[in-house]
């Protein structure tokens, strides 16, 4: 159509009139307002549902820390987790994992119904089945093992928690006829071996950090997951207000500038792996300058001075050994820590008593060998810091009632007589209790995996692979679709800690007994169940003595029965808390167990407040902490000599031995790095925390390793470049980030990435660093040693 001038002008008149009329009406203005309202109420934008707010207490069970938490609820939905100010472990502090735990509870990677695998393990398909079918199936497999006379081929790998549910698993295995109950090694496990060797005790180690003035931390990442992280945060935050007005100095001895190092009073960069030499050199200064606790050493130690054995043969003591070999000058050459710094630190250590020497790198589980931890622990003995405020204690037993003895039939007795398949307690590893990383998969017929992810997290990768290749039938008790579940034959959905009854005995490193009891704060989501209840049902299905070993109807019955022990002991307190009407604060009064008129009152208070503790009960008497035959602290471990028959005296004493040279071509050292925001034990990391990672840790799906700019220059690499990181055990593709806080020659690779399971927020992000760490076994403790591995790095 041709538009001439007239038509155009007419059109303009029409439009002008129309526009003016509309503008003079309320329509456009109301339309704008309504559209604005509309955009604020889009139904697809998530908004918190209204409801009645409330608070309930619980225990965080993400790690073994056992921190107390307050959970805010709106109606039946959990919306927020805070640290519980009244809880003795964390006193209100909480780590990022604990704070973000609700994302795991409500997240997409939950297991929802029992699933049976169809098709091969490499390429599984999953078929939902009912709980009844699942229970019958597990019972059938166990029955078949027993029928074939191989009950000992039933094995279980579970988490390291001291919990009733774990006792249930152990019990179940006993009743069936197997010793193969394995817990993943806890971070402070190696320390137990040190205590067994030097103090003759079986309990775990405890540190009175709250009363110490000086912490000599040998690579412990105190603020990135060492011990109970919530507790360490609290101790660090209050370091200037320690008991008696003292402030706490932290001296961090670590090759790289970790978060702990950056927040310490002093950072001593040390050549990787030489911590034992440095500790012994500090001992050298303490001894030669007469700065050690002479009375303690004289009265309560063995093997300090030269001594004569029963044959009258003269043996070299710790003192001669240390004075002879570890002078600051010679140790400077080993550790690259200047001699004057060594002297200074030794003097500070002596002057700022009570002082603690802590070992166990990263989260505490990494160490170069048991002798290193013995060397560090010797400093505590030289300072006389055993069973003293601010010193070393033992973890005390919680006076729970023990469960009734397991009933075993003849078959179970026969199976139980057969040694473990992981070698723990055997001639090779007499001191070890659980060695899942040494499991001989060929000797296992049915494996129960409970709340752990060995496929991802076992440091010995060959064993991790063998487990899922060789074991014919694997059941995964898991709340999440993790790597191990993906390769199992049956997945049983387990309620997460906030949906179930559960308990937890003792928190790592706390010097007095603590018992945490948690109850369901919400009804279990999906069809998930309590693992304890499932075991009871499997036992019933099997019948006979196995069923008789589980006389309870459900887990909570057993928990109640055990808690009666606490009540009957009459010791300890429950912090009975009342939230104020605004929930902004809570007031708690420690209520003595004695003051509850009946067990039922006690139980109700325990359920509500979740924590029993007995701060008065510490191992503050030396008789309690020194249980070697001579009731002395042994610089020369007679147990070590007796157990292994070492002829070389040095092998019974703390010492430093040089590591073997790197294999040809591997001239760098790869070290693992703990990130406080990443779960590195195979558990999932909530999306919120993955979002916190900076671009030089994870960019899209690329993981960054950190190297010193000088290392990068020598290797001809630029910041951000894609590289291959190779160790004798394997290689991974990563990118590099240059950071001057990393020691020259070191490559720092973060843990917790490279998942192939879980949800889309976590899957396929970076690489699993464990793939390149070739874990060795410590000759004394049998524990996995993988603090570093030789490596090389080159362009893709």
């Amino acid at each position, binding site marked *: 159509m041709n538009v001439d001038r007239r038509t155009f002008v007419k059109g303009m008149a029409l439009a*002008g009139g129309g526009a003016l*009329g509309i503008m003079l009406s*309320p*329509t456009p203005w109301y339309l704008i307002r*309504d559209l604005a309202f*509309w955009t604020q109420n889009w139904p697809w934008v998530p908004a918190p549902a209204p409801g009645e*707010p409330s608070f309930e207490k619980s225990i965080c069970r993400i790690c073994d820390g056992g921190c107390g938490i307050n959970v805010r609820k709106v109606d039946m939905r959990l919306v927020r987790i805070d640290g519980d100010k009244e809880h003795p472990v964390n006193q209100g502090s909480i780590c990022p994992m604990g704070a973000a735990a609700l994302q795991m509870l409500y997240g997409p990677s939950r297991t929802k119904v029992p699933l049976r695998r169809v098709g091969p393990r490499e390429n599984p398909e999953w078929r939902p089945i009912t709980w009844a079918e699942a229970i019958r199936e597990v019972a059938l497999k166990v029955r078949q093992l027993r029928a074939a006379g191989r009950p000992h081929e039933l094995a279980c790998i579970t988490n390291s928690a001291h919990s009733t549910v774990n006792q249930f698993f152990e019990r179940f295995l006993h009743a069936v006829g197997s010793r193969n109950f394995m817990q993943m090694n806890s971070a402070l496990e190696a320390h137990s071996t040190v205590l067994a060797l030097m103090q003759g005790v079986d309990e775990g180690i405890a540190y009175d950090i709250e009363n110490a003035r000086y912490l000599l931390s040998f690579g412990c990442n105190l603020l990135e997951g060492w011990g109970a992280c919530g507790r360490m945060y609290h101790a660090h935050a209050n370091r200037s207000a320690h008991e008696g007005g003292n402030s706490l100095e932290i001296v961090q001895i670590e090759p790289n500038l970790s978060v702990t190092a950056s927040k310490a009073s002093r950072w001593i960069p040390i050549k990787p792996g030489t911590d034992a030499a440095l500790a012994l050199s500090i001992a050298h200064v303490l001894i030669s300058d007469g700065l050690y606790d002479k009375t303690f050493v004289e009265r309560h130690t063995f093997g300090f001075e030269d001594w004569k054995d029963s044959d009258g043969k003269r043996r070299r003591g710790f003192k001669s050994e240390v004075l002879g070999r570890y002078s600051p000058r010679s140790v400077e050459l080993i550790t690259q820590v200047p001699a004057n710094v060594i002297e200074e630190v030794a003097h500070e250590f002596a002057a700022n008593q009570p002082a603690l020497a802590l070992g166990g790198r990263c989260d505490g589980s990494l160490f170069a060998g048991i002798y290193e931890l013995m060397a560090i622990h010797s400093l505590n003995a030289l300072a006389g810091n055993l069973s003293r405020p601010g010193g070393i204690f033992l973890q005390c037993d919680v006076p729970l009632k023990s469960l009734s003895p397991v009933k075993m039939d003849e078959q179970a007795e026969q199976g139980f007589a057969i040694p473990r398949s992981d070698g723990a307690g055997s001639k090779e590893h007499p001191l070890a209790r659980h060695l899942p990383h040494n499991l001989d998969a060929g000797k296992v017929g049915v494996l129960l995996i409970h709340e752990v992810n060995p496929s991802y997290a076992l440091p010995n990768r060959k064993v991790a692979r063998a487990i899922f290749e060789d074991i014919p039938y694997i059941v995964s008790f898991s709340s999440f679709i993790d790597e191990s579940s993906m390769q199992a034959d049956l997945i049983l959905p387990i309620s997460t800690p906030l949906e179930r009854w559960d308990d937890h005995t003792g928190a790592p490193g706390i010097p007095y007994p603590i018992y945490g009891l948690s109850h369901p704060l919400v009804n279990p989501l999906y069809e998930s169940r309590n693992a304890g209840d499932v075991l009871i049902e499997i036992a019933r299905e099997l019948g006979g003595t196995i069923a008789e070993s589980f006389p309870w109807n459900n887990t909570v019955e057993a928990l109640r029965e055990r808690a009666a022990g606490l009540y009957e002991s009459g010791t300890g307190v429950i912090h009975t808390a009342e939230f104020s009407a*605004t*929930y902004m604060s809570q007031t708690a009064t420690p209520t003595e167990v004695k003051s509850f008129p009946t067990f039922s009152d006690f139980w109700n208070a325990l359920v509500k407040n979740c924590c029993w503790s007995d701060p008065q009960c510490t191992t503050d008497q030396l008789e309690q902490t020194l249980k070697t035959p001579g009731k002395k602290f042994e610089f020369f471990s007679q147990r070590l000599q007796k157990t292994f028959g070492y002829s070389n005296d040095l092998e019974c004493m703390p010492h430093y031995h040089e590591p073997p040279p790197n294999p040809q071509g591997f001239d760098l050292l790869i070290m693992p790095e703990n990130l406080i925001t990443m779960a590195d034990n195979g558990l999932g990391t909530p999306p919120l925390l993955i979002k916190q990672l900076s671009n030089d840790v994870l960019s899209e799906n690329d993981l960054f390793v950190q190297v010193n700019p000088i290392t990068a220059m020598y290797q001809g690499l630029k910041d951000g470049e894609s590289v291959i990181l190779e160790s004798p055990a394997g290689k991974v593709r990563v990118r590099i980030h240059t950071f001057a806080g990393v020691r020259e020659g070191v490559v720092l690779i973060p843990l917790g990435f490279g998942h192939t399971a879980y949800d889309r927020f976590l899957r396929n992000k970076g690489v699993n660093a464990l793939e390149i760490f070739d874990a060795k076994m410590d000759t004394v403790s049998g524990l996995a040693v993988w603090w570093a591995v030789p490596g090389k790095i080159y362009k893709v």
Partner: protein
Amino acid sequence: MKMRDISESQRQFALLGGIFAAALVVSLIMGWILFPSLAYARKAQPINYNPPLHVEQIGITCDTCHFFYEDGSWAGIPTLETCVDCHSDIIGASPEEEKFVNEYVKKNREVKWALYVKQPECVSFSHSSHVRMAKIACETCHGPQGHSDPKDYLANRITNYSYVVYDPRVPLNAFTIIRDKGETVWGTMRMDECTACHRSRGTSTACFICHK
């Protein structure tokens, strides 16, 4: 010729003026009457709840059912649980009551009440600070709810917000919504209404007071 030209252009001008005026009138009618009436839909509450019965005859107050939780947060529209406190069985003979008990209480179904007032998510509105601290009466913002018995309400088709009158002499239509909002017609308050009230009371109107 010249005369004819002038009259021609005058005619042209008049024609254009006519077109303009006609368009103006039509669009004014559309803008004032047609669009507004299209923008609202007349609806009824799922249950014809009778406020005067509750307030005037039974004598309960607003906060019997619209209460504060212990921590000061606002319960808002009562859930079935609150209603059931009294209405576990049919009370009286009203057919609406019968419907309520049979259809909702017995079946444990929440009533989807039309919301007259709800601030969007971008506004952090606290009933506590208005009612408890500033001592503003419910009626100030919500109108004399408890004293009349509206049969129906108008819902905005874009926002879903609803408008209601409690005065039987006032007709409920788009025009009264535009004209009388806040006086005889009640619905979600707009920002200009919020700020006007804040100003008149000398309360801050800084952005962060409402938009946290």
